[in-house]
C-alpha cells in the first residue's frame, strides 16, 4: 500500500508544479525555455533556504522529476562536494549532482539525431 500512497503523493505534488508552469504560460508572456530556466533556479534557491528538502521527503519523484528537482540535485551536489572537499566543491558539485541526467540526455540526443529524421511541424 505504501507504493500506491507514494505514487499518489508524487502525482499531486508533481501535477501542482506543472499547473503553476501552465498558469505562467497562459497568463504571462514567458516562453517555455524561460520557464525551464526559472524552474531550475527556483529549485536551487528553494533547496538553499531549506524548503525543497522537506518537499522531496514528502513527495519523492513528485519533487525530483520536475525541473525544480534538477535544481535540487545541483544544490545538493554543491553542498555534498563542499562538505567533502571544501572550497573546490563550489565549482565541482553542481555538475556532479546532475551528471547522469545531462550525460544521458546529450548522448541519447546525439544518437537520436543519427537515427531519426525531423518531422514536418504540424
Amino acid at each position, binding site marked *: 500500500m505504501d507504493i500506491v500512497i507514494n505514487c499518489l503523493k508524487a502525482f499531486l505534488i508533481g501535477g501542482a508544479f506543472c499547473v503553476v508552469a501552465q498558469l505562467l504560460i497562459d497568463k504571462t508572456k514567458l516562453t517555455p525555455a524561460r520557464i525551464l530556466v526559472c524552474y531550475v533556479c527556483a529549485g536551487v534557491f528553494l533547496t538553499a533556504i531549506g524548503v525543497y528538502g522537506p518537499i522531496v521527503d514528502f513527495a519523492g519523484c513528485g519533487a525530483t522529476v*520536475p525541473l525544480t528537482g534538477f535544481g535540487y540535485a545541483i544544490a545538493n551536489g554543491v*553542498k555534498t562536494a563542499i562538505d567533502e572537499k571544501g572550497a573546490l566543491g563550489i565549482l565541482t558539485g553542481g555538475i556532479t549532482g546532475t551528471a547522469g541526467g545531462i550525460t544521458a540526455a*546529450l548522448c541519447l540526443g546525439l544518437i537520436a539525431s543519427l537515427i*531519426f529524421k*525531423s518531422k514536418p511541424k504540424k
Partner: protein
Amino acid sequence: MDKKEYIEYVEARSKKSPIIQNLIRAFLIGGAICSLGQALLELYRLFIVELKDAQALVSITLIAIAILLTGIGIFDNIARVAGAGTLVPITGFANAIASCAIDTKSEGYVMGVGAKIFSISGPVILFGTFSGVIYGIFYYFITMFWG
C-alpha cells in the same frame, strides 16, 4: 469560400482553449509522469541501496523514454495536449535536447547538432550551474564561520 466564411473559419480554429482545461491537462499528465517516476523509484530501490543513485536512474529512464518518443514523433502529439505537463518534468528537458538535435542534423554534426543541441538545454544548464555556484559560495562561508 468567401471572405466572411474565411474569417469565421479562422476564428473557430484560433479559439483559445480555456485556461482551466489547460491547467487540468497539465496537472493530470504532469502528475502521471511523476507517479510513473515514483513507481520506477520503488522498483529500483529493490536493487539499489543509495536513494540518490536510484533517483538518478529514474531521471535517466524518463529521459530515455522521452527521447525515444521524440524520435518516433509521438512526443509532440502528447506535448500539444499536455502543455506544461510534459514541459516541466525532466521529459521536457530531454525533448528539448532531442528535438534540437534531430532538427539541426541537416546543418552538419559539429555546428548543427553539436552546437544547437544546447539551444534550450544550454540556458538551463548554465543558469542552474551558476545559481549552484552562488549557493556554494554562501554555504561555504556560512559553514566556515558558524559551522
